[in-house]
Structure formats: structure tokens, C-alpha cells
């Protein structure tokens, strides 16, 4: 398998893992130095905003805490399309840009609606046959998220 294909598989697996709330599986795809950010730009206050930011340990704790909270349990479906994969010259890392659409399906009745759109900017570590997420930056276009959500995108 070439590295481009391996990178794509990694990105898609990460979406599948979160869709299935397989948080351990998600964290297995992440490097020890992993950082996760959800950000967006507000034209109201004309500023970039960070809405969620954690390192790997922070993500682990977040996933552990979530069952203790009251949450909307409507499942999310992440549709990701890898647009570009740019490998560094030395072949150790790749910058990946993907499109993201998040759909929400109501538990009662199962109606699905588009919940959020944005882009994912990933830095992927390549070493031999293995690939891992070093940095994930989700940049949302959607800012009106209704009652919000506890599970990261």
C-alpha cells in the first residue's frame, strides 16, 4: 500500500471510529503528541475562535467523562472526503485537507439532517508502514449548532 492510500485509510478510519463512539479505537490512530482543535471564524466579532482543544491525554479524559454527563444521544454521521495529501520532502509527514459534513439522526423517528460542514486539516506522521494523526484541526463553516454536542467531530 502506498503512503497516500495509507493516509486516506487513516482519515476514514478516524471518522468511522467516532461515528461508532469507539473512542479507544480513535485514540489508537493518534500519535502520543496528538492535538485536536475545533475552530471557526465569527464574522460577528471578526475573530477566530477555538471551540474545543485538547492533547491526547485531554481527549482521553473527555471521552472518559462524557458518560457521566447528560447528553443528546442522537448519533452523528461524519462524511469525510480527502481532498489533498501533501507529503513533506523527507517523507516523514503529510499535510492532509479533507472536506467534512456531519449529519445528525434523531433517535425518535430517525430523521437525518445536515448538522455541520467544514474542513479538516490534518498532520499525519509517516514512519515505515505505520501512519498516525499528529494534529487535527477542524475548521467549521457552520456556527449555529443548536443545543450543541458533547462528542467531538
Amino acid at each position, binding site marked *: 500500500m502506498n503512503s497516500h492510500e495509507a493516509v486516506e485509510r487513516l482519515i476514514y478510519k478516524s471518522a468511522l471510529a467516532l461515528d461508532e463512539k469507539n473512542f479507544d479505537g480513535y485514540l489508537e490512530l493518534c500519535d502520543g503528541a496528538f492535538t485536536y482543535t475545533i475552530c471557526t471564524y465569527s464574522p460577528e466579532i471578526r475573530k477566530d475562535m477555538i471551540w474545543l482543544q485538547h492533547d491526547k491525554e485531554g481527549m482521553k479524559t473527555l471521552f472518559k467523562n462524557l458518560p457521566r454527563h447528560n*447528553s443528546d444521544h442522537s448519533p452523528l454521521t461524519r462524511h469525510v472526503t480527502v481532498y489533498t495529501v501533501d507529503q513533506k520532502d523527507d517523507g516523514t509527514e503529510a499535510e492532509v485537507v479533507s472536506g467534512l459534513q456531519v449529519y445528525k439522526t434523531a433517535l425518535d423517528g430517525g430523521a437525518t439532517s445536515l448538522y455541520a460542514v467544514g474542513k479538516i486539516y490534518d498532520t499525519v506522521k509517516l514512519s515505515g508502514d505505520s501512519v498516525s494523526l499528529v494534529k487535527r484541526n477542524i475548521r467549521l463553516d457552520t456556527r449555529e449548532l443548536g443545543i450543541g454536542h458533547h462528542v467531538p467531530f
Partner: protein
Amino acid sequence: MSRNSAQWHAKPNLPETHYVDSSIYTSEEFFREEQEKIFNKVWIIACHESEVPNAYDYRTFQHPGGENLIIVRGDDQKVRAFYNICPHRGNTILYDPSGNAKNMTCIFHSWSFDTKGNCVDITRGTEGYQNRIDKQDVCLREVKCDTGYGGFIWVNVDDESMSLKEYIGDALGLLDECIQPEMEVFHYHKAIVNTNYKLWHDTNSEFYHDFLHYFNRITGMIQPGYYDRKYEGYKYGHASVGSMEVQYDKYAGSQKRGVGWPGLGPGGWILIDLFPGMTYNLRTSVLRLDTAIPLGANKVAIEFRGLGLKSDTPEQRAERIRDHNTIWGPFGRNLHEDLLAVHGQGIAMREGTDSKWVIQGREESSTIHDEVGMRHFYAEWSRRMGRKASAPQEQGKIEAA
């Protein structure tokens, strides 16, 4: 034993100030009356001065009374508010939520207005109107506007209203020192929820629902000082809740807060509700400001702002943002829980569900789980509406509490 229909509809065995009829949350008729008798009479926060820092900066604002407004800073540094309606053929003048415009020019036929509301250009004016219409006759409608209480920009669409100072009175006293330093908005988001705006303000007016929040149970409810926090009511329906020391390190992944806030004790938390739908929520390192904008009886847009200090270093700001995001923001633990609850109320109590009473009857010497904050709100609501919240179908004069 469960109750039959008659028992379900029977008035609660409490004083009539201690419950409300749920139709105040569901009736479109009451909602339109609230717009007229409440929202179009009182002072409302439109934005913060840091959102219009320079001359000609503007913000648009959807006023809860229904009007669309422009907030703009003039070259004299004064901030003014106008209807965002072109006096020609009623187009929206400013489309973007923010921007900078020396003259505000309507895209439709290019009439132009300055930041004082004067019409400065009618394209091909004399050719079309000869001397029948003058620029003076078609200026913008100005709305009362004032800045204060932490640099917020307030508007009042009632030309005859009392001053902002009189309207707020002593209500923000607990925050006096805290809102002296210059602040800056770092977070803004809007949540649209199918529920009544008062249900959101009610949630901000009672802490009994800390049972909803795992975070607050762990860091607050089981900690010393929690039950000492007290409510105080002020004139015109405002209410405050005093501070305690929140034990942030009791929540896994959270930590003792470092940056704090001038005038607030370590881990402190002061919350002030302003009638009819604004809340100052200063929690340790962040001021959260909620503005509820009803869009119908069962629909509300809530504007959420997070503020830090203008003087913040990048490290301090980053810490405030982290603290903010842990519990607030669209992915925060507490905000989602609060919104989930009022969303549930919106489903349970919408018209036709045979909902009837909402009980606000807890009395605990005005301490944290007392429901006096909501009762205080509904006393003012009843006075302004001329309807008792417990029996809103009857109309008449109601005295202030």
C-alpha cells in the same frame, strides 16, 4: 398515586406566586404581547463595544421586539443605533453582521446614510422628486443607545423609556469592581432552540438544576460554601446570586484556575439575571453574557458571548478560552446540558400537549436552591403584562412585588 385529568389541571396547593400556567410559554398571543409590552419598552444588550472599536465600525442586531437594528460608531466615537430599513423601498441597508462603512449605502437604488443617520445622497434626487422630498425627510429612524456596565452597548426602541441607569439600578452591584477593567469578546455563538425564551432565563435564574450538571455537582454542590450562596432581587425583575469558591480540581481533566478575575475571589462565581432575558455570568476567569432573543412562543435565538480582559497576555487569554470551552461553548459540558433541558421543555410543553403548571415553589431562605429568582422575574412579568403568570387568561392591573 398518579393523577387523573381533573387532578392534573387543579391549581397546585401553593401560593399563586409559586407556580405559573404553562401557556405563558406556549401562546403566540402572549408572545406578541410580550414583544409590545416588554421587549419594546426595556433596555436590551445589542453587542459589546469591542465589536465596534473604530470609527465607522458597525454591527447588526436582531432586536427581540422584532426590529432589525444597526449599531454604528461615528467619527465622533459615539455609538448610535438605527433601524436597518432603507426609508426608500424598505430594503435591508446593511447585510453583513459586521463591517466598516463611512456611508451606509443601500444596494437597491444607492441612497446613502451617514453614521449619524442623515440621508446624504438620494441618487438623481431632483430629477425624480423635484422639491417634493428632501434628504431631511428620509433620514434613518434612530433608537436610544447607551454604553455601560462592562462596555456593553444597550438599546431601547421606546423613545419615552427611563434611562439605562434607572433601569439597572443596583442590580449589577455585585459585579461593580469586576466590570471596571476594559473587556474584550473572544467568543460568540448563537443557538436557535425550539423553546420559550423565558425557559432559558428561568434556567439561568435557578441553581436547583445543578443536579443536571455532573461538573457542578462535583465542583460545587458537594463542596463547602455551596449552600451559602444567596439570591437577591432588585427593582424591575433583576436578580443576583452571590459567590462561592468552585473546586475545579475535583473534575477529572479540569484544574485549579490560574488567571482569575479582578475583584472576584479565587474560583469565584457571580451570576446576575437582568429582566427580561440577559445574564451576566462571571465564573472565575470568564464573563459569559447571554442574550435571549425570542423568535416566537416556542423558538428562541440565544446569543452567547465569552469575554476576557483587554489587557490579557496571549497565555492568559488561552487559559480563559480553555476554561470557557470546558463548560461553555457549543461543545462545552454544561451549556449542552442546559440547552438539552430547555429543548426538552419545549417539546413537553408546546401547545396541544396538555401541559398545565410549572412549579417554582422552593423556599430555602433565598439560598442557592430557592426558586425565588424565578418568582421575582414573574412578579415583574405579571406587572408589565397586566396578567398573573399563574392565571394569564385574566387581565388587570398588577402591582409590583
